[in-house]
């Protein structure tokens, strides 16, 4: 295994789904359910059984809109405010209306959600305004339950193939994708009438402070290929300057507090044991206060549970140490930290792109369509803001059901074999060199530069320096990167995605000349939010081979936001009591 072999095969399908994590399986499943005669291929870089952000499981739904607890209108309003007004509400509103039926369906798959003594869903309040958090006591079963459904629906699964470029046809429609086997380096060209991209976040963009390259918040296999492929195919990407930055346990990449510990009385505190933010729901505004506190002399910041009853603290510990990130218990054991006894030090994560938590994604409409005909995107990589795991499921379903209708009576668009040959040459270049720089060093350097220069607060001069340093690394990568086996070739290809994402992060950030979304786009040279000029999307795309940004109006709101509500998320700091 891992020897570099040559080879190229070609297959055809109606719908190609790229990425077997959360949104991808749901898209493939829904497409096959709606048309059992359609040929649907689910392509996955690892193995669908345990791939993607929810590899091991999930502690809960962060954004469940459940009748009796919240309404689609209220949720749409909350997300619009949380995302500082930059929100095409139709996609969020559609998600909010349809997510409950997805919850019921997941429940039937065997993924059970917490219910109270009356058999009602036990929804908790964590957000600033509404109530949307639903715990999943057997959240460790998600991937297994999904896999069962994929087998039942007889979706064709191709594991160990990493898509590297999309193919567009002579008519400008999507025509398929090129992929490379991660263990043999053989190529597979998949011709398709529609392609649904579900490749997750760009989670390996910044470098964790521990220096361990794979200790990222996101599953590090999510290295941003979806963003890169969409860019090179000519699709538009939205609001990439709205970075993902999360509050985490210091040195450990588990989420800290809000969704599990918050409803049971845990909170974020400073070194004086004081609460300093009103609401632990993750937003850029909340992260800005977190950042301020870290620098204020009252830091560091802690997850505080040691005021709770021993049983409550133990209960939280049990959830956090078993379901989503079970190695967390081992981390605390090694540090001799118990939640019932000591406050747990927290810190800020590395930066990334992820609309699941913020809003940086490939631009999609309320049918999960990108700006390329026949190309869809769903989950963490698509631009529906704050959409989390349930958003990946729901928008994946929307994409699958729309695409299956789209491909009816559709012909294959003709692919350009020259493109295929060119891509093969690009991917295999590092295998042809006897000597050179290994991909881990190229990647480390890119990500170290991202930390040094792109991590907010964003400073113009630093961003410009970063762009020229990244250009030097690009030259090294293109001229000198060298790999010894197929596994390293996967890492080399990922390094090129990471570099593209770093370039996009810098370019989009410099274009938006204001500050917005708290820490996510805190621009020191333009410190104020400027609604007059910048209450719009920033769309980045490749125009005549050049990275370009443009403004796009936010669609008129379906759910109006009152003047006195629109800044609710800007008032995060606990006010002094009179």
């Amino acid at each position, binding site marked *: 295994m891992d020897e570099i072999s040559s080879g190229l095969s070609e297959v055809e399908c109606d719908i190609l789904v790229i990425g077997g994590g959360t949104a991808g399986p749901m898209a493939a499943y829904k497409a096959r359910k709606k048309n059992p005669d359609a040929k649907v291929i689910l392509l996955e870089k*690892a193995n669908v059984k*345990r791939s993607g952000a929810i590899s091991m499981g999930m502690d809960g739904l962060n954004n469940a809109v459940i009748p009796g607890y919240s309404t689609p209108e209220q949720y749409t309003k909350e997300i619009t405010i949380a995302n500082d007004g930059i929100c095409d509400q139709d996609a969020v509103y559609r998600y909010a209306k349809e997510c409950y039926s997805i919850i019921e369906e997941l429940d039937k798959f065997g993924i059970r959600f917490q219910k109270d003594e009356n058999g009602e869903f036990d929804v908790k309040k964590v957000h600033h305004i509404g109530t949307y958090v639903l715990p999943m006591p057997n959240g460790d079963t998600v991937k297994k339950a999904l896999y069962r459904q994929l087998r039942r629906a007889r979706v064709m699964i191709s594991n160990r193939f990493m898509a590297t470029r999309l193919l567009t046809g002579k008519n400008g429609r999507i025509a398929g994708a090129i992929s490379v086997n991660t263990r043999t380096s053989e190529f597979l060209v998949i011709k398709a009438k529609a392609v649904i991209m579900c490749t997750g976040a760009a989670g390996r963009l910044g470098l964790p402070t521990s220096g361990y390259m*794979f200790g990222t918040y996101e*599953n590090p296999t999510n290295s941003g290929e979806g963003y890169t492929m969409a860019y090179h195919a000519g699709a538009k990407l939205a609001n990439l300057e709205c970075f993902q930055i999360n509050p985490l346990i210091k040195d450990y990449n588990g989420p800290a507090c809000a969704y599990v510990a918050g409803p049971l009385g845990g909170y974020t505190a400073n070194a004086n044991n004081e609460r300093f933010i009103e609401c632990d729901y993750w937003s850029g505004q909340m992260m800005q206060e977190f950042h301020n506190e870290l620098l204020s002399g009252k830091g560091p910041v802690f997850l505080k549970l040691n005021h709770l009853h021993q049983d409550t603290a133990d209960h939280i510990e049990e959830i956090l140490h078993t379901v989503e990130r079970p*190695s967390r218990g081992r981390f605390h054991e090694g540090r001799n930290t118990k939640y019932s006894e000591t406050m747990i030090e927290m810190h800020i994560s590395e930066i990334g792109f992820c609309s699941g938590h913020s809003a940086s994604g490939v631009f999609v409409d309320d049918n999960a369509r990108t700006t390329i005909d026949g190309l869809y995107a769903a989950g963490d990589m698509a631009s529906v803001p704050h959409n989390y795991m349930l958003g990946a499921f729901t928008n994946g379903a929307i994409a699958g059901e729309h695409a299956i209708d789209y491909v009816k009576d559709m012909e294959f668009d003709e692919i350009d074999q020259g493109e295929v040959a060119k891509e093969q040459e690009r991917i295999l270049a590092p295998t042809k060199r006897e000597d050179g720089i290994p991909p881990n060093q190229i990647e480390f350097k890119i990500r170290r530069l991202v930390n040094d220069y792109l991590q907010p607060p964003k400073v113009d001069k630093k961003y410009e320096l970063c762009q020229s340093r990244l250009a030097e690394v690009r030259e090294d990568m293109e001229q000198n990167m060298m790999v010894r086996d197929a596994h390293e070739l*996967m890492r080399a290809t990922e390094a090129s995605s990471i570099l593209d994402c770093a370039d996009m992060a810098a370019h989009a950030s410099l274009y938006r000349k204001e500050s917005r979304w708290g820490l996510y786009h805190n621009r020191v040279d333009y410190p104020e939010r400027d609604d007059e000029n910048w209450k719009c999307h920033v769309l980045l795309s490749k125009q005549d081979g050049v990275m370009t940004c443009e403004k796009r109006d936010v669609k008129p709101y379906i759910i109006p936001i009152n003047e006195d509500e629109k800044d609710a998320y800007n008032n995060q700091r606990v006010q002094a009591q009179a």
Partner: protein
Amino acid sequence: MPIANSPTTVPVVVDEKKCIADKGCTVCVDVCPLDVLRISEMTGKAYMKYDECWYCMPCEADCPTDAVTVNIPYLLR
């Protein structure tokens, strides 16, 4: 420039007495999202070939003989 091999201590440990990879089992290798485990040609047992671990634990949880232990990588311990 020539390539050196820098040593690194890896987080995933396989108990070779319990591992049944030599009987054809490949569960841990299959489920790793980073694809960092391999079966050794010398011993026939699973081992961590690449130090690129998310310490997510499917390899340990899904192992049919409890042969796999995931430790926290030293750098963040």
